[in-house]
């Protein structure tokens, strides 16, 4: 099984086909863009609280925006629109996707199912390098004279086409880079699905897979089905931008009849709603496994959890219309979408209850990954429940396109997924790099993230409820927004603390990487297969194909005598 042929520096670290190396490459890329997108969030907050003021030195005010038309070092409305457009795009497609799907998926899937590697190692490598190319195209767009894309992360046409009046070629670069990123994701998805279906070790039935693998499996299925759809939409948008077509343009400014802007919205959200679940399913899986490890008992209702995840995945494909209630959708269609959306409550509630059930009567160890996993319960609970307002047509008429929606999706997508990702990084760091992360710094990072994050995102919902609409460069423009201005400043300060807390994480990450304590083989006493291997894990992973006897969460089994866990590949002695 082991791959013994000699590897040069290039084939070992750069153009590697080893899933563990590719996973780490995705991790570096994801962390870079997490910081990049996070820094943009700081600039957005500055601009919202200190509109048209010179950026301070700690936001690089003497380096950034020197050619700004409203004064050197000052963010104007154009720059502001570019900021929130790219913040959304980067966080979703360049930070969360590479970290949770690229890094955790690549690292965990083969190790957790007992496979030597991905089933298509070269495709895996091409997937990363396509993502790298996409990142280059994305970053180059910042060098354009008029700057990067400014049509919002949704890039609704006609605004995102030449008739929208946004100067420059930023939108073209945005569309191209997103198409490339989608191609990368699609290659990854095909690889993950095939690997999980074909390369499970003997005895590893579907209902013996860790829930992390379940989450990544379902995510990959959604990606394989829906990324091609957004790709089609992006290609039409690209043609409108570069080839003079008007597929997505209508109204007074259209010169060719027959275009329809709504077409793009449908295509975008047919992909866009599953995308939410694409991002959250791996996080759910990770959290379900981690709660079990740190509660020292099996995941409560394991099979029900897996089935609920399948049900949510299926339902997520037929609810996209709830993003479009205010577009003048036919009443019958609106009601149908509302009913289908609300159905998601049932599996979500069962699923959430199983998380609580896992904690119930456990022996809870509050290690850093556990803190993040439990915080996902908090943020996802809030994010999920506040989805109800947006699923309901009447309350959505008022709350649509306000900060309420922004707060809601930051809870579900940003907070849940990010905390799930942090839990995963803290948890698998010892296996990835053979070192322990600093526990104290981890706890500081947790509390400095958890509290300010809630102060920012919850207050976004409060502001939205007070009527504050989205993507407003200067909130002082409206009289009805006067009551929220104080809150606005409070959120900005909270956001700075949240941003600074991530420096603690970065410091911890690199410090531990270089000078951390050497990790034991199984520091968390976890039962899944990756912990049976010594770090560094060689190319080819397992010396011999493991045979799987137990489920992924055999903790505190009454037959166990000297320890409270048993690996999946160890027969239970009776």
């Amino acid at each position: 099984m082991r791959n013994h042929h000699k590897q040069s520096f290039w084939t070992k670290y750069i153009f590697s086909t080893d899933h563990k190396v590719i996973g780490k490459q995705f991790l570096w890329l994801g962390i870079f863009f997490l910081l990049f997108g996070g820094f943009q969030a700081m600039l957005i907050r500055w601009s919202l609280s200190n509109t048209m003021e010179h950026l301070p030195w700690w936001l690089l005010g003497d380096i950034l925006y020197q050619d700004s038309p409203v004064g050197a070092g000052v963010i104007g409305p154009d720059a502001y629109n570019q900021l929130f457009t790219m913040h959304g795009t980067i966080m979703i497609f360049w930070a969360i996707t590479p970290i949770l799907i690229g890094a955790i998926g690549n690292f965990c899937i083969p190790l957790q199912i007992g496979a030597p590697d991905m089933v298509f190692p070269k495709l895996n490598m091409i997937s990363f390098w396509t993502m790298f190319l996409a990142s280059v195209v994305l970053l180059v767009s910042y060098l354009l004279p008029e700057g990067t894309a400014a049509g919002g992360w949704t890039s609704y046409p006609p605004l995102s086409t030449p008739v929208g009046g946004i100067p420059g070629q930023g939108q073209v670069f945005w569309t191209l880079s997103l198409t490339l990123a989608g191609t990368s994701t699609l290659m990854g998805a095909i690889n993950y699905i095939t690997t999980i279906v074909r390369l499970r070790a003997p005895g590893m039935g579907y209902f013996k897979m860790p829930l992390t693998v379940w989450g990544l499996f379902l995510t990959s299925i959604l990606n394989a089905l829906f990324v091609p759809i957004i790709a089609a939409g992006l290609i039409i948008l690209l043609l409108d931008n570069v080839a003079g077509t008007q597929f997505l343009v209508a109204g007074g400014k259209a010169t060719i009849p027959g275009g329809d802007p709504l077409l793009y919205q449908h295509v975008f959200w047919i992909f866009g709603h599953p995308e939410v679940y694409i991002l959250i399913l791996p996080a759910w899986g990770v959290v379900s496994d981690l709660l079990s490890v740190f509660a020292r008992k099996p995941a409560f209702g394991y099979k029900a959890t897996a089935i609920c995840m399948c049900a949510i995945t299926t339902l997520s494909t037929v609810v996209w219309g709830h993003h479009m209630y205010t577009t003048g959708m036919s009443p019958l269609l609106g009601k149908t979408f509302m009913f289908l959306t609300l159905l998601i409550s049932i599996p979500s509630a069962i699923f959430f209850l199983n998380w609580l059930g896992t904690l119930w009567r456990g022996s809870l160890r509050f290690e850093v990954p556990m803190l993040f996993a439990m915080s996902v319960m908090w943020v996802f609970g809030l994010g999920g429940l506040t989805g109800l307002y947006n699923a309901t047509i009447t309350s959505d008429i008022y709350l649509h396109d306000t900060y309420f929606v922004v707060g809601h999706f930051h809870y579900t997508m940003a907070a849940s997924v990010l905390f799930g990702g942090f839990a995963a990084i803290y948890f698998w760091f010892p296996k990835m790099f053979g070192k322990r992360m600093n526990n104290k710094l981890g706890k500081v990072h947790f509390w400095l993230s958890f509290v300010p994050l809630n102060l920012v995102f919850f207050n976004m919902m409060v502001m939205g409820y007070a009527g504050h609409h989205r993507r407003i460069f200067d909130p002082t423009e409206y009289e009805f927004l006067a009551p929220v201005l104080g809150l606005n400043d409070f959120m900005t300060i909270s956001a700075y603390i949240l941003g600074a807390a991530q420096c603690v994480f970065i410091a911890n990450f690199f410090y531990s990487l270089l000078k951390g304590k050497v990790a034991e083989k199984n520091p968390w006493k976890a039962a899944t297969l990756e912990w049976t291997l010594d770090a560094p894990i060689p190319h080819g992973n397992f010396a011999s194909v493991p045979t799987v006897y137990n489920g992924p969460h055999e903790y505190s089994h009454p037959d166990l005598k000297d320890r409270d866990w048993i690996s999946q590949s160890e027969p239970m002695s009776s």
Partner: protein
Amino acid sequence: MKILNRLIKKTTSILPGIWFLDPPRDVSLDGYRIDNVIQYTDTVITIYFGIVVLAMLYFIIKYRSRPGHSAVYDRGDTKKHVAISIAMGLLVFFSIDVVIEGMSFRDLKEAFWNFPTGSDIVRIEVMPQQFAWNLRYPGNDGQFGTDDDLIPAQNQLHIPVNRPVVIQIAPYDVIHSFYLPNFRVKVDATPGMTNTMWFQATEIGNFEIACAELCGNSHYRMKGYLTVESEEEFSNWLQEQEEEGPEDDWGDEDEEIPTRWGWTWKEAI
């Protein structure tokens, strides 16, 4: 249904504010319906989230790892466990989702999708463009797209109090969204289609119109002014508009100015 309504009112009054900011003052006939459904959702999700948080806190204290304490091996997959889980899932569904769905469908049927008929309706056509609201009143003949249409200054929407106002909207360039925070309503303006929406003011005063859909760099100040006035003031204002003739203040000088943008009114179903 009446008992249910009363029950909803009772429960929602217990917990008026997990939100510590109020929405803008509601001055519309049907805005209270939206506030009610939001308040009901507030209340029940506060209760459910509160239960979850209390349970978590209890578990954190009671089941924390410590010498002499060990976990109970429990896979939670017996028939009893599954039945309880499903029952809880259904409880959540019926106590929140079904109720708000019922409220929402009722409100849509009775108000938001129940377009007014009758002779006292005020009809207005709106054509947003980057970055202003163009308005058009039908004039004496009651028909749009004719010579006697009244076109007031951009962004100046006047309506009479206590009369249903029907807005028909289609933009010139990109997508905009006509948003009246004080009336709890919002409708997208998508190029190539007309959308219709209605509301009724219950108070005289000045309110703001905002664009809720990103429409370009000046989206943030695409602001309109809504003046709700008495019947008499409104007809005086219409009279003035008639005397002044159409206002032609299309902003951009290099912009082709469409002289006739009105369309034949499309009756809502």
